[in-house]
């Protein structure tokens, strides 16, 4: 038997109050169709919930989606809590309505990539693939 390649596991979450889940769901499906296991945690998640789920599910990466403008508070908080729990190796990325000049700040805070509106799904999928392999 050929050894089965290790599955990439990704957590897709909507932090904060924002209910716009079109993007999160489309990305979740695209990652599934690319052969990954996607844990979708649904709406209105606190950073603490997201980090706990990521650890229990032992994911390679976390995708955060926010369209309400709360990203500067919520995204870095996820990275901080992961580090605190000794799971800093989990890759965190963000997507949504993110002003251009917030992107470098998010990256400095440990968000590995930011995907704005119009990002091709292929680009997102290959990013997660790479993140999964590196983990």
């Amino acid at each position, binding site marked *: 038997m050929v050894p089965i390649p290790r599955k990439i596991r990704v957590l897709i979450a909507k932090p*904060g*109050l*924002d*209910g*716009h*889940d*079109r993007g999160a*769901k*489309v990305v*979740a*499906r*695209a990652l599934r169709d690319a052969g990954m296991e996607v844990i*979708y945690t*649904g*709406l209105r998640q606190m950073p603490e919930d997201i980090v706990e789920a990521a650890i229990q599910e032992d994911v390679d990466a976390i995708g955060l989606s926010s*369209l*309400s*403008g*709360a990203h*500067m*508070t*919520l995204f870095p908080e996820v990275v901080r809590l992961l580090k605190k729990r000794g799971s800093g190796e989990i890759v965190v990325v963000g997507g949504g*309505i*993110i*002003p*251009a*000049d917030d992107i470098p700040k998010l990256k400095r805070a440990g968000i590995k990539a930011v995907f*704005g*509106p*119009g990002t*091709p*799904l*292929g680009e997102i999928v290959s990013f997660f693939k790479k993140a999964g392999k590196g983990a």
Partner: protein
Amino acid sequence: MRHEDERKVLEEELKRWQETTLREALEALPERRKEFITTSGRPVRRLYTPLDVAGKADERLGNPGGFPFTRGIHPTMYRGRLWTMRMFAGFGGAEDTNRRFKYLIAHGETGLSVAFDMPTLYGYDTDEPEAKGEFGTCGVAVSSLDDMRILFSGIDVGGVSTSMTINSPASVIWAMYLVMAEGRGVPWAGLRGTIQNDILKEYQAQKEWIYPPEASMRLVVDTFEFGSKHVPEWNTISISGYHIREAGATAAQELAFTLANGMEYVRWGVDRGMKVDDFALRLSFFFNAHNDLFEELAKYRAARRIWAREMRDTFGAKDPRAWRLRFHTQTAGVSLTAQQPEMNIVRTTIQALAAVLGGTQSLHTNAFDEAYQVPNERAARIALRTQQILAHESGVANTVDPLGGSHFLEALTDELEAEAYRYFDRISELGGVIPAIRKGFFQQEIANSAYRYQREVEDKERIVVGVNDFVVDEQTEIEPLRVSEASFKAQVERLRKLRRTRDAKKHEQALERLFKACESDENTMPFILDAVRAKATLGEICDVMRQVFGPWEEPLLY
């Protein structure tokens, strides 16, 4: 019969054309694609002729201002009065948004439209833990009567019409507006405006709910009942397809789900014991304007025709005004691209044109920077100017329903109408709108359409300029709009002061009475108004309701 003869002649001519002229042309130059589709994935034929339009013109179209209102709800449409140019605005604290309102009015806006921030939309005060990081980012924070007073200070609330995009806590925010007007001596009878108050589409698409569907519907009907008696000029609901479309629905789904929701509200109103003519006049609608000009136009026209028929024939409304579907339009936020954002001005112009040709009553045009942020002042002004150019330079407002009679448009209108009725049947089979929500029907339909659209873009079956073709590598420069820390502090301070200085006993009693009213089947509006007068905050009032009504858990779907 003469009609039959004409048809035959047309069919023969068409056949001849296909066999000669068309065939030669296709041999010389094949078409660019095998299939041409609309934004919603609907196939479009090469040519439309009178043969594609069934039924009698007078039944399908009627005349403007007359049943079934396909051509418009007013006999003179924009020759009489232009649509209301109503720009959705809100960010930061009440002071920030009040300044933006005055700026927009100074530049020719004719109606106000308030965007609230996330905590407000969920019934939380700015200083609650759930509100962390969300203050003023995508709308204005209104936690109390004091905020509402500041928001409208210096604005003629007796003269202007105000639309408020608020759903689950709509009755509380409306009560704040009413008490604010009361405090300024403006009688309720003269107040004009709209609360969105459309909770059904929240469960289906936008997902900003607080309580379970039945409790939410009760609150909605409470506002219908209260409004029809005390604030007769106010639209107590704006039944919204906009968010359904933004979440990924097709034009037909937007049309069908919105109207199905509309009819559900009517049923609830009738079940409460109201006469349909007494509250139907205050039902308004809100649609999306997406890129596909003709499909959008057909959607608005089909919506008017369906609503007129259902209100007259199914619900037995006698007042012809109750048959008219009045609607606000917003251009499609989801069509805006982060890449080459200036191109969004062009997209928005085409979408706004669809809304105007489709006979909208009011219009919001998106700003080109909205794929990044809540619009800055300059971007918001350009968006408003787009409407003014359409109104005053394009000439499209000079005649009623200028595209009516186009074979393509009429055929498309019929198609959308038929598809809407097929959806109505499926919804009934599932037991109605709320059972279908519980089964996740709408959510699944919308998510499937969203994914299909995205795949089409991925596979380049669909070109999005600047995204998957005509791409340039450039740094985008957009002047950022920032919510200031000072606004946040001022808001929190104002809340603390309010809680400190209000009459504690009066406040407590008002909330207790509200609790009891929620438990009973009394209309909640008078109790909410009293709580607002007693300086209860939005979060406190919604907490009372949360205690009585409990939470809502979304059916599991992806």
